[in-house]
């Protein structure tokens, strides 16, 4: 039973970690946290099920199409719900605009897709349901791809360094002549793709279900809050830990009390360390 806990814990943890990275990528580019994060993961599953399961496209084609659609949703988020309120960051209008957009996406999927969870096809054919089933390892693989990909992007490409510069200091980056707006759109597209990848890879685990959005929103936010906003390493570590602890608790206690416990720990940890366990400098107020 330990392998079972490890497999499902790492799988769920990878998904949470990737959702955390989605929050971070959006935040770094715009200082905005978006409620559409979880919906991107949900869309990854629903679109994947539609492309591969219903239309019968090859898995790789389905993946590319899913990522493209999610990138588009990311860009739409930026254009519709983020850019118009960026100059009023201190009024926190982004919370409302992204919440509104997230609700619209979710309701649209509920009405046009289904309110019941739909199956997600097997991609590689490595099933069996045991701890070695692809449904557990695909999310882990996707998470690893994300980590390595981001590392390569940030360390070794000019665009990646421009991303980092913007996340350090928007104004300075703009003063240096970086195309801040285009980079921001690119970040949202990137966030969309990571979210879509997470949803696609976890489709067999979470199924193509319209209500996965809020679930991923909350459980993806926990690693961000614990790992520190904008801190991808913190998000990955906290996400994996959260997945393992949650699945272990499911095994030990089961039922509703696991989610109550996760929530309680989340609140207590946040109140004790509002900047996250991995720390983050305090911002100037005056």
């Amino acid at each position, binding site marked *: 039973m330990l392998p079972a806990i490890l497999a499902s814990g790492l799988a769920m943890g990878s998904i949470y970690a990737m959702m955390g990275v989605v929050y971070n990528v959006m935040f770094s580019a715009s200082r905005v*946290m978006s409620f559409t994060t979880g919906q991107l993961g949900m869309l990854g599953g629903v679109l994947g099920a539609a492309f591969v399961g219903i239309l019968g496209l090859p898995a790789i084609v389905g993946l590319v199409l899913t990522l493209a659609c999610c990138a588009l949703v990311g860009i739409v988020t930026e254009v*519709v*719900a983020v850019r*118009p*309120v960026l100059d*009023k960051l201190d*009024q*926190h*209008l982004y*919370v*409302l*605009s992204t*919440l*509104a*957009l997230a*609700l*619209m996406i979710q*309701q*649209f999927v509920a*009405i046009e897709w289904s309110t019941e969870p739909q199956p997600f096809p097997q991609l590689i054919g490595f099933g069996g349901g045991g701890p070695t089933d692809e449904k557990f390892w695909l999310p882990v693989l996707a998470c690893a791809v994300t980590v390595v990909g981001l590392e390569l992007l940030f360390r070794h490409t000019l665009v990646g360094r421009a991303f980092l510069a913007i996340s350090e200091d928007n104004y300075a980056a703009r003063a240096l002549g970086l195309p801040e707006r285009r980079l921001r759109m690119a970040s949202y597209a990137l966030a969309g793709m990571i979210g879509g990848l997470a949803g696609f890879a976890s489709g067999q685990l979470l199924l193509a279900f319209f209500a996965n959005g*809020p679930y991923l*929103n*909350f459980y993806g*936010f926990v690693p961000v*809050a614990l790992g520190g906003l904008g801190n991808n390493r913190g998000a990955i570590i906290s996400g994996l830990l959260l997945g393992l602890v949650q699945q272990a608790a499911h095994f030990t206690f089961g*039922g*509703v*009390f696991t*989610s*109550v416990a996760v*929530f309680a720990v*989340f*609140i207590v940890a*946040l*109140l004790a360390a*509002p900047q996250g366990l991995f720390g983050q400098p305090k911002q100037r*107020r*005056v």
Partner: protein
Amino acid sequence: MNHTASTPRPAAAPALGHTLLKLIPYAAILAVALVLPFIANDYWVLIATRAAIYWVLVSALNLVVGFAGQLAIGWVALLTLGAYTTSVLTAGTVLPPMPLLVAFAAAAVVGALAGLLVGLPALRLRTFYFAMTTLGFATITTQIALAWQDVTGGGIGIPGPWLPSPFDNALGFYLLCLGLAAVLTWMTANVARSRFGRGLVAIRDAEVAAEVSGISKPALLVAVFLFSGAAAGVAGGLFATLQSYISPEAFTFDLSVLFFIAILIGGRGSILGPLIATIVLTWLPEFAAPLVVWSTFLYALLLLVIVLAVPGGIAAMLDFGSRRPLARDRAVVPREELLGALFTERPASSAIVLKDVVLSFGAVRAIDGLDLTIDPGEVHGLIGPNGSGKTTTLNVICGFYKPDTGTVRVGDDVLKPGEPQHRAEVGIARTFQTPRLIGESTVLENVMVGGDTSGRATFAEALLNLPRNHADEVMLRERADLALRIVGLEALAGVRADRLQHSELRFMEIARALMLQPRFLLLDEPAAGLSGDEIARLGSLIESVSRHGVGVLLVEHHADLIFKICHHVTVLDLGRVLADGTPDEVRTHEDVVSAYLGG
């Protein structure tokens, strides 16, 4: 003088007609609500009852979301708690059955405590974090209701309370809910018009300004969270009565969205707007039954449109006054002679003394061993190049920064570092480099915020508009009127602050600082962006203020102004005192000439 003559309406005590005018929409809504049962069938009475119950919750939540700007999106959790508390207590499944009034009182208490519990994280967490925690709380509440079968009946639920005659029929119950809704409207309106309401809005839009005015964010938020929680608890009891049976699935997230969105569509800081929005959103799905599938989608779309296009919501659309053009060639003409009426007694004559203050940001020493004395009755200039530590010094005095070493004293009292909200008590007022305005409030309200510490009434007294609260309001209004006349802004008292020009905002901030009848006035670049004429008037106003015994610390770049009005000038460079003395001494100081004045 000629400018005041052109706008005859006095700032203080708005005319009775004006107040009545504002009451008309409420009276109209109440009249329609009272007539409704006699012209419509039970179905419409039911919908109206539902709207009234939702309003009991929304009106109080409005203080949290609309006024204090805390994004509590999971408030349905409190409705759930109230509904279960009343139902469980009247049914007597756990304890012996209790009288209805006790059950509703218990629901209010449970709601208040839960409101506090949900709300407390807001004191520490940023907006999005707080929104997430309320959301999580809502989920948890439903899950507990499901799991705790022995008490809540689990998923099957339990019957709601049954009210005795005369409330046991549709009409009686409707009138009860309507009455409560009216009382809640009155109460929240009382709070909104009191210093507490202005304080909440100040916390929302200009938190720093609220702190220096002595407004305690924790105390204020605790009060509104308790109140909103209690109202939601009572609303929950009424909801359970209306539904006659409650189960967890009745408390959907859609309902929470409705409460939250009603406030934002209605308009932050308004009462009428959210009231209209609550009625419309309750009624809309009934009107458009075929659209019921799309209702949440449409609410969300409406929210997006409102946020992007009309951030002020319905209230802003109804605010015709703010579209009237202001006079274009207006000038600010202070009247220092009125200062005597403000400073009726001379402030005590002790000085602010900074001793050996050191403050580092990382490796940078922003202040490096500073000694500074601000004497009462003097204008003390603080100059230096950018980054020399001027504003940082102000922030140390005001308690925003904790110095690494060193103390700030007033007389014998050491000011506690890191507690800006306690500076007003000792009579320290300030303005900011960038004016901290509460854009959606009027100039008068912006200024009244500055006198918050003079208020005597408690939050509860404000809720019920008891005499002490009324006295506070009259006193603050009179004083704000005086302060506005002193700085020459009385003609703009009723105008939204975000419509003012930059120079006018500088004077508005001074008026707000004067509300404190301060012993010390710290001004952070008050002349920036002012015209030559305005700078001259400002200088003369500052001098007059100091003549009333106020110690003024003036951070400025305009050397002319500094040397004209200051009794004492300190020059900072890299966090150290470069020179210190009378204007003449400093002006001729070698280092200053070479380093700063540039010959």
